């Protein structure tokens, strides 16, 4: 390339974790050109994990979760305005206020938003909300402060389960309704999900699995309860809709890029593909909205809604945006995430849903301290720990080296008699919530995306 990669105009669309870390990395790598961050939310970048944990327990204010800056950015911030379109030929980003931002290189980091309750009238009832933004969290914390008689959580993925945990810790009655057979089943499979059922019930959660909410009921504009598919009815003053996330890609509909409901497809170096599968060299993507090929998972495109992935991928994307071809790096990080709920620390490496079997490798479920190891066709593909996070490093290495499944004998705290059992990963379509890891596939019968030209 003839022009100077350390100079020029870079625009980052999305001013959350991935956008901020990419901006910092660009400066760290010596980018001296103009840098603009566009964000739909009015706030400076903030951290989302505490919003479903410490904020709901009153230990931190929703407004206190700002992400610390690692360095000064010398950037233009365009906050409170959303991107509405992209003209890749003219290299212009279109904003909702009519402005057009020219760029030399673009990073897409628009992330996801909460999937709304499908019935808009019911969704508008006072007391019905989703949890994604700091404003959502502030509102939910206020509602919990008012000590409602019962909270309804729709969907028992990680967000729903963490909210239920916070409610119980605050002594509030909570009903969790999940269409799948168990909480967390979409991320961890049915075997570990069965353990999560016992965990939630032991903490006093009114857990209803295999059931859906058919209607949210209102009285004078306020939520009063819900009807369930099994014919039962519950009273509730607050309903938190936790149906997973929707990727913010609609604004790219006419861009000609490979963007759709499953995310924005890119190569291992975070360069975005066009809809014909041809790689661009000036549009990059990182964070929740990206779907990228991963060699550990048979090069299927995967999309990860993980805090750690947002950082790692943003750093790789930023590095590649200012580096010539041979110096570019692939994004190969082994996926990992954590959750804290019901007093436990749950952590994962690899992709548990990319599995056919699981074994309890260490610890015991009774003590609520365990390591579950997942395998796919005889190799280790994931591990999940409960209050045993320090062992993860070992399993990460086994995943990276495609070590045989089940792991060999010898762990000091291996419970005798444990054998591999089916991991029981359900079809994502039977869940209330979208999966936080989406294997978006290269097999044609898997999660096919249909292209529908807009207009």
């Amino acid at each position, binding site marked *: 390339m003839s022009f100077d990669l350390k100079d020029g105009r870079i625009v980052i669309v999305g001013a959350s974790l991935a956008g901020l870390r990419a901006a910092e990395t660009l400066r760290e790598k010596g980018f001296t050109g103009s840098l603009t961050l566009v964000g739909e939310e009015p706030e400076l970048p903030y951290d989302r994990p505490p919003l479903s944990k410490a904020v709901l327990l009153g230990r931190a204010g929703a407004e206190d979760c700002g992400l610390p800056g690692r360095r000064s950015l010398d950037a233009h911030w365009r906050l409170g305005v959303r991107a509405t379109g992209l003209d890749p030929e003219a290299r212009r980003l279109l904003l909702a206020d009519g402005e057009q931002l020219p760029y030399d290189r673009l990073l897409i980091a628009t992330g996801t938003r909460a999937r709304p309750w499908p019935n808009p009238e019911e969704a508008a009832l006072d007391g019905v909300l989703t949890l994604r933004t700091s404003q959502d969290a502030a509102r939910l914390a206020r509602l919990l402060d008012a000590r409602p008689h019962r909270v309804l959580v729709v969907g028992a993925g990680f967000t729903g389960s963490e909210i239920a945990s916070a409610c119980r810790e605050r002594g509030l009655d909570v009903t969790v309704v999940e269409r799948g057979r168990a909480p967390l089943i979409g991320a961890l499979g049915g075997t570990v999900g069965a353990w999560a059922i016992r965990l939630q019930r032991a903490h006093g959660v009114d857990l209803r699995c295999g059931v859906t909410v058919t209607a949210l009921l209102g009285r004078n504009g306020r939520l009063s309860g819900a009807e369930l598919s099994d014919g039962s009815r519950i009273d509730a003053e607050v309903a938190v809709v936790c149906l997973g996330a929707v990727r913010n890609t609609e604004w790219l509909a006419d861009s000609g890029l490979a963007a759709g409901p499953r995310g924005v497809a890119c190569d291992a170096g975070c360069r975005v593909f066009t809809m014909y599968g041809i790689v661009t060299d000036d549009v990059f993507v990182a964070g929740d909205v990206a779907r990228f090929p991963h060699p550990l998972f048979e090069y299927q495109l995967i999309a990860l809604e993980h805090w750690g992935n947002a950082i790692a991928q943003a750093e790789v994307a930023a590095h590649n945006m200012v580096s010539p071809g041979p110096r570019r790096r692939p994004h190969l990080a082994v996926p990992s995430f954590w959750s804290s709920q019901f007093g436990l620390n749950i952590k994962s490496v690899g992709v548990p849903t990319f599995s056919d079997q699981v074994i309890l*490798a*260490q*610890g*015991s479920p009774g*003590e609520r*301290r365990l*390591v579950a190891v997942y395998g796919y066709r005889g190799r280790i593909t994931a591990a999940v720990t409960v209050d*045993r996070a*320090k*062992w993860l*490093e*070992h399993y990460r*290495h086994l995943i990276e080296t495609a070590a045989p499944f089940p792991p*060999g*004998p*010898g*762990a*000091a*705290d*291996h419970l005798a008699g444990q054998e591999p059992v089916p991991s029981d990963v359900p079809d994502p379509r039977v869940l209330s919530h979208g999966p936080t890891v989406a294997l978006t596939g290269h097999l044609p019968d898997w999660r096919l995306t249909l292209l529908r030209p807009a207009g």
Partner: protein
Amino acid sequence: MSTDTLFRRITDYANRPDPYPLYAELREHGVARQEDGAFLVGTYDEITALLHDPRVSSDVRNRDDAEELLAGEDPAAPRSFIALDDPEHDRLRRLAMRRFGPPHTPGRIDALRQDITAIAEDLARGLGEKQHIDIVDDFAFPLPVAVICRLLGVPGEDVPQVHEWADAVVAGLDFSPEEEPAERRRTALQARQAMGVYLGELARTRRERPTGDLLSQLANEDGPDGRLTDGELMSTATLLLIAGHETTVNLITNGVLTLGRHPEALQRLCDDPELMPRAVEELLRFEPPVQFLPQRTPLADIEVAGVTVPKGAPLILVLASGNRDPLRFPEPDRFRPDREDNQHLGFGSGVHSCFGAPLARLETQIALTVLLRRLGSWRLLADPPEYRRSPVLRGPRHLPVERGGGVS
């Protein structure tokens, strides 16, 4: 020389001042089997993998030579969590951690900041205008001892006795064959038992009349994981007292020694005390107070860098060698107080990673900051200084310095 004598040479007291060339020799040969069947590992990646491997035991009862090692010990006596595996290790460590750090007591160490600073200032003031100072006896030793005794609640008048026991226990970690190892182990065992009995007594009085210290809290703990038995309380308190005693002394002393050898780094720290936390991390890499972990053993045959280490064989992880591995750290033999990406093995890693690390860090940061400010200009009087015997907890026995004449 043959690598199967490496461990003998490393533990030879003559090599105490500079074991690093031996560590380089170890790294060159990968995993080194010793003449007695032990395996020595000194490369960063291999050590890290073994520290995180659930098949590697910290309990010497799993070693083939356990009978000989444990001669004279009561097999039913409770062991401290440093010498146990999960799930027992995890349960005991968790019970102790409830009152020491996050998630249940996140502010404990930070709350000691003022106390530690006051003790350090006191000791530094005590140096007065003395021309010749022994960093060990005058400063580095009394500071951590005062801090750990205050934290645990050991009364001041008992501190000398406690120190005598701790010294004997550490002497038991000397591997040099020229003296009677069995005799030393016996003395160490007796000291550990005496210390346990003493702390047990103290805990009993605290159980009746709690005084707000860690020992009182451990004795009266009633969390979801239950309470430590009397035996477990004795072994846990003994462990904390010894570990909190003997390692930080060496870290502080090694710090002064290293800065005396690197005047430009010393000058940078005097000009910019904000650099101290990073300098302490570099110190933990460059001159770690725990040089190797001598008590591990595999619970199954495991492969390390192409060598099979059989189940039950002694497995010695040389942390100080991993810290100098050029494959992990650029220019590993240079002391760089502003080193980036410094994930050293000074506190080990994995489930047994140093329990007291946050305390050791804070103490050393404060100790060196206060000392450098009070000393003015100074220089080392003996280089290398006289070392303690232990090759594991390696550090100078005395470190004489003279004021004036050096850098300030």
